């Protein structure tokens, strides 16, 4: 009985979700238009914190776009059935997140109208410019990969295409990490650990997003995920969360003991007020430890626990990126070592930054784009992971 009723109203739910997504996108576009008309003065950004909340959203989405493919790559490259059944959905999520992230990045430019200049006047020494190529390449390779997966006549090509995507996204995430790692003068960023950290973060966040969407799709279709698969995916998430924690700890320890960025580390880890709180409370406790408990505690680890864990992992992701991107800029540059400094330009001072509603709207607009693409995609094409019980038995 219930089943039929849901089928009847399902289409309405779909349009409701779509309308919600489009409204969020619209809000983002309006915010961007306002920012172009009035200038970035209506944002919280300034000459010290030059990349604000929109960059947190954009980098979150771009990093996750690469990581969510992990599910697909493991499937095609290593030929595991469980993952293979998930590859199309992972591919769709990746394209959607990349589109959302790039939209935010582009609309946050001072002159978004000139974005084409980035292609016509290409500076080959710029990591940013490399990333433009890497992002467009990811669209192409993932598109190709999806085609090989969804068109039966192309089946034989899915393995090489999967390999191509695998290699491409590792390079892409390295490139994203390098955007920061090349900023030699900034205490927060000049670290060779950033590319590997970004790669492992991408695995974690991508998988968390995948698990959330998969949960939603299975619930929507009133299906239950096979417990063996559930266990495998959640263990993988737990492993990734631990790995990120490990690398984040190493990053801070090398900053402290190797690069001697003691003042900066003191700021982030103990005296940075909001940033310190966000790091420990948002990232470490809520974003890592609690999810680990939800995943591994005896008696926990069921579907709902994993969903909650995944959501918390994403909260942790935003906290970590916020501390990394904004906190990293708020800390003043060391221009004349050995001196305390004052000036009219905020030298030697911690910069203050508070995002405005326009930045929130723009960032959320990017998520909205991803949401709309996924909602429409799963509706018109068959992206639901189909697990073949026989293969499951053999495969494991």
């Amino acid at each position, binding site marked *: 009985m219930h089943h039929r009723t849901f089928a009847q109203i399902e289409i309405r739910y779909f349009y409701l979700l779509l309308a919600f997504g489009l409204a969020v996108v619209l809000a983002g576009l309006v915010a961007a238009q306002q920012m*172009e008309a*009035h*200038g*970035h*003065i209506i944002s919280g*950004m*300034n*000459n*010290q914190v*030059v*990349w604000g909340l929109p960059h947190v959203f954009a980098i979150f989405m771009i990093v996750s776009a690469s990581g969510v493919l992990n599910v697909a790559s493991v499937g095609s490259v290593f030929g595991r059935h469980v993952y293979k059944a998930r590859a199309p959905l992972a591919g769709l999520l990746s394209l959607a997140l990349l589109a959302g992230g790039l939209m935010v990045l582009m609309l946050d*430019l*001072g*002159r*978004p109208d*000139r*974005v084409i*200049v*980035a292609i016509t*006047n*290409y*500076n080959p*020494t*710029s*990591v*940013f*410019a490399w990333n*433009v190529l890497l992002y467009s390449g990811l669209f192409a390779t993932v598109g190709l990969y999806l085609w090989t997966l969804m068109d039966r006549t192309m089946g034989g090509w899915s393995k090489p295409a999967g390999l191509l995507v695998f290699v491409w996204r590792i390079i892409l995430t390295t490139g994203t990490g390098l*955007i920061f790692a*090349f*900023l*030699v*003068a*900034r205490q927060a960023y000049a670290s060779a650990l950033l590319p590997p950290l970004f790669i492992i973060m991408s695995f974690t966040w991508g998988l968390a997003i995948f698990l959330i969407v998969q949960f939603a799709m299975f619930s929507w279709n009133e299906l239950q995920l096979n417990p063996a698969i559930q266990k495998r995916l959640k263990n993988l998430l737990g492993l990734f969360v631990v790995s990120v924690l490990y690398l984040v700890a190493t990053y801070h320890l090398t900053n402290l003991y190797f690069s001697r960025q003691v003042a900066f580390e003191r700021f982030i880890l103990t005296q940075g007020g909001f940033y310190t709180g966000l790091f420990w409370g948002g990232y470490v406790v809520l974003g890592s430890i609690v999810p680990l408990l939800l995943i591994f505690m005896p008696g926990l680890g069921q579907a709902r626990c994993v969903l909650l864990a995944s959501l918390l992992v994403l909260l942790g992701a935003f906290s970590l990126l916020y501390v990394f991107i904004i906190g990293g*800029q708020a800390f003043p*540059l*060391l*221009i*004349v*070592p*050995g*001196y*305390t*400094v*004052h*000036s*009219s*330009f*905020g*030298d030697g001072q911690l*910069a*203050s930054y508070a995002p405005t509603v326009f930045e929130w709207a723009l960032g959320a607009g990017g998520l909205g784009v991803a949401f709309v693409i996924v909602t429409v995609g799963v509706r018109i094409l068959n992206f639901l992971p189909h697990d073949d019980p026989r293969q499951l038995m053999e495969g494991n």
Partner: protein
Amino acid sequence: MSCNHDQQRRQFLSRGAALTAAVSIAPGLMLYDFARARPPGEAANPAVRWGMLIDTTQCESGCDACVSACNKENGLSGRTLPTDSQWIRKLELQQEDTGRKISMPMMCQHCAEPPCVDVCPTGASFKRADGIVLVDKHRCIGCRYCMMACPYKARSFVHEPVTDHSGATPRGQGTVESCTLCVHRVDQGVAPACVEACAREGHQAILFGNLNDPKSAIAQRIRSVASVKLRADLNLDPGISFVGI
């Protein structure tokens, strides 16, 4: 013929301007080697490297003549909100162990290996053959990556529509800008506005000239006094050196 004549006249005029500037500056101090003005359209001279030597012992705390002159020259508002452009600013420093106080101007260091140029995706940030680092206002997309990369916080982002067009350099909302070393003056054979203003105040803390010319006042001075470049550990080879830090 008349074209040629015009050119000669222009050259004469700009040389005249250079001469006036030199005369108006404190006597005995050669602030600028007046090699020649650069005719419009001619490429910057790769044999030249423009630079500055800032003598912090001559710079007076609280004096901001250089800053005001820069603001006036380039049409900057002079406001100092975190969102306002400041191409040059005064740093008030205090040595941590001795407590010694220093005051000095800070601006784009016109690095020979400028990270802002390396990271700029569009090539809008560029270095001229004579070492001056500039932003092409028509090419800059406002990504602010150069601001992230600059170790000296030398760059400003134009956060608001530009209403004051009185400055010598074009400015535009949504693009990044910084000290141009008064390229428009230098090309006319005139010293940058800050240099002139400092001398006018009688401080003579900024010496400007061609670092590549061994006979120039700046090159000679650099040979004879101890000077440092800021964050020399980064190996960016800035064109600005400091005495007394």
